[in-house]
């Protein structure tokens, strides 16, 4: 159901970022300086220091910040390469996996749902994904690497009454096993995080979010 058809109450409030305007202005200034150097083959020391060293470097710092911010978006995750796109598309279509259940109930943010826990670790993982994409060093079906991150569930659920009332959650042995990474939430007691059909890297990139 399209939010625009339902009325303004169902449209997410705009949250524009203007960092890109600053970035484009700095990059354009740097290009102007560099064009003079390229065409004339000479320039002043001050112009070279500003236009070929300071401005370009600052432009890339801004670009890096911009990329960090944009890479939080779910649409960004699905925009890049074949393996991730079906996972993102399944958020809006699948009805059984944990990720889609959370997504469709609005239990997670629809803009930056993928990596809202542990920004630094997520960025490190993102860089690894980039390298895997370039080198093609991945295999289908995709598999979870390492122990399941129970903290990503506890971040919201640990303090809810419904979660606390569940008898299994009160079992101390199970608690220890979960916190040590021996047992995870998904796949054992709860459905898998993503549908199996989305782990084989087929289908175009159709992000469910912005």
């Amino acid at each position: 159901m399209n939010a625009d058809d339902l009325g303004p109450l169902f449209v997410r409030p705009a949250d524009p970022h203007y960092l890109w305007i600053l970035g484009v202005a700095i990059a354009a200034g740097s290009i102007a300086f560099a064009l003079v150097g390229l065409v004339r083959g000479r320039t002043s020391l001050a112009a070279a220091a500003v236009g070929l060293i300071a401005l370009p470097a600052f432009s890339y710092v801004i670009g890096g910040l911009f990329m960090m911010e944009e890479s939080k978006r779910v649409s960004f995750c699905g925009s890049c390469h074949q393996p991730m796109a079906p996972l993102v598309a399944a958020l809006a279509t699948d009805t059984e996996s944990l990720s889609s259940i959370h997504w469709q109930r609005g239990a997670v943010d629809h803009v930056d749902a993928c990596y809202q826990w542990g920004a630094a670790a997520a960025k490190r993982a993102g860089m690894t994904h980039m390298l895997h994409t370039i080198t093609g060093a991945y295999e289908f079906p995709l598999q979870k690497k390492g122990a399941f991150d129970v903290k990503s569930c506890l971040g919201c659920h640990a303090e809810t009454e419904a979660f606390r009332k569940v008898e299994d959650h009160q079992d101390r042995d199970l608690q220890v096993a979960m916190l040590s990474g021996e047992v995870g939430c998904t796949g054992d007691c709860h459905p898998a995080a993503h549908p199996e059909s989305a782990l084989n890297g087929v289908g175009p990139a159709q992000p469910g979010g912005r």
Partner: protein
Amino acid sequence: MLRLASALVIVAQLVVIALYLRPAGNSAIVFTFVGTPLLAAGVLLAIVWVLRIFGRIRRAKVDPGNRSGAAPRVAP
């Protein structure tokens, strides 16, 4: 050297502008693995060029051969 540095910087800046205009996985990969090395090379060349010109100016100021009949003079 200046022309090469300028060309590298221009290409690197075009890459970052592409990221601003279309922030997606592909442009992020190009920014990280193509744009950044190009920028590093361009900035490095520019620094070398600036230092060489700066050194040439300093040497010219203390070189008596540049001043006919003048005594050697060290710049303050």
